[in-house]
């Protein structure tokens, strides 16, 4: 359903993405791993058109969304995003954060939106904090609200940028199981992550990025079991030493 080909992006002279190609099918959970600064966030942001791609195509259900005629807000409503730094709306409470998009964008009734917002907040354990403002939350709490906000939009594809970075192992487990459920229900996910255990155990496909190119991709078994590239091996060394 999502096909990226020859995607490129530069900031000034600095080429951040170089000829990125991959395809995602409905229900896939694709993990994107790679060194800090290798372009993972930039890739997600290009897919969501928060950065204008410098070249290449991004096909969503066969339509090139970099095309001029695409209605970008409508596309974005179908492709959710959880930011690395959350970007919760500071002027709203936790609950309002999860409602506003449903009402203003998806045109749901406020009462309906409220119910589904509370449901997703409960799933990530944030129901008691409905009335808190973002600045009053701990890092992990903000991250969970960001996840609930994206889920509440009920998108077709969800882009997660390190969705569990601020969470403790227990909470990571809970969030991952929510994500697994969603995957079973057919939600497609692209997850940038440093949690190798997640990439290995949950995803259907793993992409390893290095310096703006896809160095290696394949099933978790391939990548973690028998990495072909030297870089991949080196990158995974510490994880494989400690955890496997």
């Amino acid at each position: 359903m999502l096909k990226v080909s020859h995607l490129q992006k530069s900031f000034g002279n600095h080429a951040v993405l170089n000829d990125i190609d991959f395809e995602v099918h409905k229900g896939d959970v694709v993990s994107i791993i790679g060194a800090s600064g290798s372009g993972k966030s930039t890739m997600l942001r290009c897919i969501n058109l928060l950065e204008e791609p410098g070249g290449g195509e991004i096909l969503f259900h066969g339509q090139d969304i970099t095309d001029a005629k695409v209605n970008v807000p409508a596309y974005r409503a179908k492709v959710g995003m959880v930011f690395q730094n959350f970007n919760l709306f500071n002027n709203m409470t936790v609950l309002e954060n999860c409602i506003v998009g449903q009402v203003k964008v998806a045109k749901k009734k406020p009462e309906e939106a409220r119910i589904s917002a509370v449901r997703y907040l409960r799933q990530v354990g944030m129901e008691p904090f409905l009335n808190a403002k973002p600045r009053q939350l701990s890092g992990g709490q903000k991250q969970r609200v960001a996840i609930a906000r994206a889920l509440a939009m009920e998108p077709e594809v969800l882009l997660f940028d390190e969705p569990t970075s601020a969470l403790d192992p227990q909470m990571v487990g809970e969030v991952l199981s929510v994500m697994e459920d969603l995957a079973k229900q057919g939600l497609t996910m692209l997850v940038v992550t440093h949690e190798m255990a997640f990439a290995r155990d949950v995803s259907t496909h793993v992409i390893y990025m290095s310096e703006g190119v896809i160095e290696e991709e394949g099933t978790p078994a391939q990548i973690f079991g028998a990495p072909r590239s030297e870089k991949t091996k080196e990158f995974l060394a510490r994880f494989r030493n400690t955890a496997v």
Partner: protein
Amino acid sequence: MSISNMSFLGRIGYLLQRYGTSYLKGAGTTLVIALVSTAIGCLIGFVVGVVQTIPVDKKRDSAVKRGLLKVVKVILKAYVELFRGTPMIVQAVFIYYGLSQVFNIQLGMWSAAFLVVSINTGAYMAESVRGGIISVDPGQMEGAKAIGMTHVQAMKNVILPQAIRNIMPQIGNNLIINIKDTSVLSVISIVDLFFVHKSVAGALYTYFESATIVMAIYLTMTLVTSRLLLLVEKKMDGDANYELVDTMDIGNQLRTAREHDGEGRRG
């Protein structure tokens, strides 16, 4: 007793007794024009500020839309520069007398007064709003766009509410400026507080005495309004600490929530 023998304070008392109601009426006029025009001006400023920040997407927007946007932006820019850049007193004369003389458009003096002060405030507010908007973390705009909001939706729901908080001190400044600047409307026959002062000072040659009274009245008006605006700011900031919906019960709630959604979960 003639006023030449009175003390400074005695003369002030005399003026108050003789012209007290005039001063108050003038103050009322001043306050009404300032409040109404500041409110309208803020609205104008918000609209202009939002439109000015609509990004042009060279690729996606049609040539027509881009052209239209460009034209609207140029017009708004011209509006801001023209009204911000020329003295309000001259604008008032041109609008009130000029329109009447050249186009035979007879604006009432009150409409003209509200119009002139509002569009002036709007021009200044447009710049203040721009400052407010750039001071909001760009991540907020990205968050809004990511859930599918259009530029205007994002502005209305996310950016402006935060920008407004940041420019509240500025709105206060503008209100206070307006309270004082309505004095130029005397050229179009509006008898505001300052005009009363001029009349009194001109009739009795008691400039300092009348100015003291007028300063006190201005100060009262501006102090009250700036206090009120500070209260609004406080209100906007909300509580430093939120209260949990049910503080004692978090554990239980969390547990209940987990049990409810517990199916299909691992460990």
